[in-house]
């Protein structure tokens, strides 16, 4: 797998669907966070699905076609990438909010701030959903020993930034000409 340090000894998987840790290691497991997450994840799992059937709680057992647990370093790296894109999404939302709420109005273009701010907020939500989709695809590829799929996130960000730069230029020009 690309990026794997072949000199490293194999690391026993212990995250998520991997084998459970030895009882002595359970003593260092987090209490607050773990309990909070188990409560939420149990609620999600026990919710009836769209066909009205109760979803079985599989506990720590992976589905039969869920592949094998990858090196935890890659799982962590995938998670960090997701978090980085999530922060980018939040930054887009804050930028949109800031444009609408903090910028002075463009002279002669009363709709200018909304034209700039609202798409930024919407794109923030799009980036967040795309980041989750990207994490899912990468995780699936790692679990099945497949090459990592090409990420669509840079393309999305490029389109967003280029589009916003174009719209900003139009708004500023329209404001200057009036």
């Amino acid at each position, binding site marked *: 797998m690309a990026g794997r340090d072949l000199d490293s000894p194999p*690391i026993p998987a212990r995250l998520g669907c*991997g084998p459970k840790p030895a009882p002595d290691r359970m003593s260092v497991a987090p209490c607050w966070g773990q309990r909070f997450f188990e409560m939420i994840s149990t609620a999600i799992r026990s919710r009836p699905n769209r066909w009205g059937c109760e979803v079985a709680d599989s506990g720590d057992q992976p589905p039969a076609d869920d592949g094998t647990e990858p090196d*935890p370093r890659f799982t*962590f790296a995938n998670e960090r990438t997701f*978090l980085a894109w999530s922060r980018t999404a939040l930054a887009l*939302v804050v930028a949109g909010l800031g444009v609408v709420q903090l910028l002075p109005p463009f002279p002669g273009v009363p709709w200018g701030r909304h034209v700039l701010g609202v798409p930024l907020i919407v794109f923030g*939500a799009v980036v967040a959903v795309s980041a989750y989709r990207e994490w899912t695809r990468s995780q699936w590829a790692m679990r099945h020993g497949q090459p990592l799929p090409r990420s669509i996130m840079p393309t999305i960000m490029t389109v967003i930034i280029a589009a916003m730069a174009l719209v900003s230029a139009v708004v500023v020009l329209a404001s200057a000409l009036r």
Partner: protein
Amino acid sequence: MTATPGPPGQPDPGQPDRGLARERTSLAWTRTAISFAAVGGVVLKREVIPGLILLAVVPAIWLLGRVAHTGPEKLKLVTATIVAVALVALGVVFIHR
């Protein structure tokens, strides 16, 4: 380079973590929680109730980063929260025109 599996931020007495993957992931969760706090602060300037709700989400996000399970559920929660934040922001934008 070796790294150990385990929950972010939790010590693992069994193996050294030379790659510090767990610590880096824990820090990434902390940064994400701080980002949520920043958004909450911005919203709080205009809308008190949504801002306070967003600030209340911050410890929940931080706690999510402390759990051992790296599954889709907790990342789904983060995604859903960001989408909710975007909806709140849109509401704030259109209320204060």
